[in-house]
C-alpha cells in the first residue's frame, strides 16, 4: 500500500473531534437532469473531524462535497453547515461559502493576479478587510505552506505542487472553519504530491475540520478519523480507517480496495 512519508511524526495532540456538529446532511438527493447522482445521503460531520471520501470515479464523491458549498444544488433533503441551512436564499449561500474553504483538483488560481493578490482578493472584497491586514495574513499563510518568496510571482510561473499549496493558502485566508478538498493531488506529479499532503497534514494537526475526496489511501490511513466509501451515488460503508482497510464489510468495498491497494 502506498503510504505517505513525512519529514516528521504526525502530531495528534490537537486532532480532537468535538461533539459540536459542523455539517449535517439529511436525506439529501440530487439529480443531473434525470440521472440520480446522489441518493439518500445522510452524513453528520463533527467539528475537528478529518474525513476521507473514497470510491470509484462517477460515484458522486466530488458532487457530494461540491453540494456542501453549493457549487452544486441539491433537490431534496437538507444540508446544514455550521447551523446555516443551504437554500436558494443567496445570503445563506454566501455565509456558508465564507466559512467553508475549497481546494480544487486543478487549483483554479486566478492567472491574472499575483500569488499575494490571489490570497488577498476575497478577504478584501468579501470580508472588507483593510488591504494591509489582508496582506499580512496572506503572507502568514504563504509562510505556512512554505512559499512566501513566491508572493509576487504569477501562478503560471509556479510548479503544480506550489500552485496547489497557494490554493490552500488562498482558502485559509478566508479563515474557514471547514475545508473541502476535491482530489487535491490527482493532477500532480508524484514528487509534488508529497509537499501538498504535508501541508494538508499540518492543517489536520491544527484541528481543522476536513473533508477530502482523494485516492491517497496513505493519507486516509494516517490522518483521517473516518473513511467513507461511496458507490453509485450512495454511502456504502463508513468506518475508522483501521477497520475500513483491514476489515471491510461490503463486497463492493472489498473489490474496490483490492483494486487500488
Amino acid at each position, binding site marked *: 500500500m502506498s503510504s505517505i512519508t513525512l519529514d516528521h511524526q504526525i502530531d495528534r495532540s490537537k486532532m480532537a473531534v468535538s461533539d459540536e456538529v459542523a455539517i449535517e446532511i439529511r436525506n439529501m438527493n440530487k439529480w443531473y437532469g434525470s440521472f440520480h447522482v446522489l441518493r439518500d445521503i445522510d452524513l453528520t460531520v463533527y467539528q475537528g473531524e478529518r474525513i476521507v471520501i473514497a470510491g470509484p470515479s462517477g460515484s458522486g464523491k466530488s458532487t457530494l462535497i461540491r453540494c456542501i*458549498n453549493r*457549487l452544486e444544488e441539491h433537490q431534496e433533503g437538507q444540508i446544514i453547515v455550521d447551523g446555516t441551512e443551504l437554500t436558494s436564499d*443567496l445570503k445563506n449561500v*454566501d455565509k456558508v*461559502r*465564507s466559512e*467553508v*474553504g*475549497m481546494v*480544487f483538483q*486543478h*487549483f*483554479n*488560481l*486566478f*492567472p*491574472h493576479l499575483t500569488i499575494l493578490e490571489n490570497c488577498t*482578493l*476575497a478577504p478584501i*472584497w*468579501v470580508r472588507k478587510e483593510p488591504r494591509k491586514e489582508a496582506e499580512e495574513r496572506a503572507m502568514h499563510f504563504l509562510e505556512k505552506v512554505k512559499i512566501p518568496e513566491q508572493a509576487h510571482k*504569477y*501562478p*503560471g*510561473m509556479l510548479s503544480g505542487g506550489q500552485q496547489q499549496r497557494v490554493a490552500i493558502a*488562498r*482558502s485559509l485566508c*478566508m479563515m474557514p472553519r471547514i475545508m473541502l478538498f476535491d482530489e487535491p493531488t490527482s493532477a500532480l506529479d508524484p514528487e509534488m504530491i508529497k509537499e501538498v499532503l504535508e501541508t494538508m497534514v499540518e492543517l489536520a494537526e491544527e484541528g481543522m475540520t476536513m473533508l477530502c475526496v482523494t485516492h491517497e489511501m496513505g493519507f486516509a490511513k494516517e490522518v483521517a478519523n473516518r473513511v467513507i466509501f461511496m458507490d453509485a451515488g450512495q454511502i456504502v460503508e463508513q468506518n475508522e480507517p483501521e477497520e475500513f482497510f483491514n476489515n471491510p464489510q461490503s463486497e463492493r468495498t472489498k473489490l474496490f480496495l483490492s483494486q487500488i491497494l
Partner: protein
Amino acid sequence: MSDMSYVRSEMLPERAPPASSVGVVGWMRQNLFSGIVNSILTIVSLILIYMVLAAILPWVFSPTWNGTSQNDCREIVGNGHHAACWGVINDRWQQLLFGFYPNGSEGGADQRWRPIVAFALLFVAVTPVLFNMISRRMNWVLLLAVLGLTGLYLGGAVGMIVGLVLLGAAGFVGFKALSTDKEARAAEIEAGAKRLPNPLIFSAIYPFIAPWLLWGGTIWLPIAAALGFVIGYFAFVFASRALGSLIGIIVAVVAAIIWWMVLTSVFANAVDSILPIGLEAVESRKFGGFMLSITIGVVAIACSLPIGIVLALGRQSDLMIVKALCVGFIEFIRGVPLITLLFVASTLLNIFMPPGTNFDIILRVLIMVTLFASAYMAEVIRGGLAALPRGQYEAADALGLDYWKAQRLIIMPQALKISIPGIVSTFIGVFKDTTLVSIIGLLDPLGLSNAIRADQAWNGLVWELYGFIALLFFVFCFSMSRYSMYLERRLHTGHR
C-alpha cells in the same frame, strides 16, 4: 553482449555556437537562403520589391507641393513625366481635416482651435486609461500645458495671463517630476505628502468637455448633462436604501432619463439667461473631414466596449428575458448592413420621433454606429468568456464573491485580455467604417475628396487624395494595432 555500463567522468563545458549560425550571416542563412527554393524566392521577391518601388517612388517624390492647379503641376514636372500633384493636398489639407468647420473666411473668428484642443485633450484623457507607465504628474503636466497653450493662442489679456499661469504651473509640476527621483517620491508619499489628484478625474469629465468644444453653445448644457449622472447617483442611493438595489438601479435610470429628456434644456437655458457663458455654436452640417471620422470613431469605440460587455453578459444570463433581448439585439444588428442602419439614421428615425424634435444628424449616426459596433463587440467578448475554464467561476464562487464582483475582478479581466486582438480588430473596423457616412451626405474625408475633385483646378485627381486619406487612416489604425500588442505583452502573466 558487450558491456553497457558507462559513467561520465567529467561534465562538458558550454561552447559557443558555430559562426555560420549567429550574426548577420547566420541570420541570412536561416531566414533568406535556407535552401534552393528559399534562395530563389528571396531573389524573386527582391526583384519584385525593386520593380514596385521603382515605379512608385518617382511618382511620390515629385516637386509639386506648391502647384496651384493640375496644369501647373504638369508644367512643374514637365510634359510626358507621370508624377503626383501634391499641390492639391497643400491647397486642401485643412479642408480634409476639418471639413467646413468655421475658419473665419465667412466672417467671425477662426474656430478651428476647438477641434484641435479637443483632440489634444483626448490624448490627455485617454493616457491614464491606456498606459499605467505614465505617471500622474506627467498627465497633469500635459493637461496644464494644453490648456496653457490654448490660453496663449486665444490671446487677449485674460487668455495671456491664464495661459502663462497654466504653463508656469505645468513647468513647476514637470520640474518637480524631473527633480525628484523614485525613492524621494516614495519617501514623500510615505511621509503623507499630498499626492496629485488622480488624472482619471479629467478622463471622466472629458466626455462633457469635448462635445461642448466641438459644437459650442452654452457651457450649461454639458454641465446639466453631467448633473444627470449626479441625480441618478443620489436617486440610486436613496431608492436602494429604501427599496433594495434592483429597484434602486431602475429608479436611478428613470430619474436620470427624465432629467435628460425633459429638464436638461430647460435648466441650461434658464441658467444661461442669467449667466451666459459659452462658445459660438457650430452646426453639425459644418462638421467634416478627418475630424468627423475621429469624432464618430472615438465615440463608437468608447461606448461600444461597455455596451458590448453588458450584452455579452446578458447573452450568458440565466434570466430568460434578458438573454432573449440580448440575443435578439445582437443577431438583428449583425444581420443588417451598417449602410442600412445609417439610412435609418438619416431618414427613417425622424419619422418615429415626435414632430418638431430636431435630432442632430451626427448624434443619430453616432447612435447607429455605436449600436452596430456593440453587437460585434458583444460577440468578441463572448468568445473570451467562453475561453475561460469553468474552474475560474467555481473558485470565485467558492471564495464567496458575488456575481458582479466575480465578473469584475476575476472573469472580465481575463476574458477581455483573451479578446484583445478581436476587440482591437473591431475598433479598427469601426474606425474605417466611419467613411460610410459619406453615403448619407456627411462630408467625411472621402466625401470631401469628391467635392475637391469637382473643383476645376483639381479635376480628376484621385491617387493623391486617396493616398493622403489612406495615410491618415493608416496612422490611426496602425497605432491601435501596435497598442494592442503592447497591451498583450503588458498583461502577459505566464502560462495559464
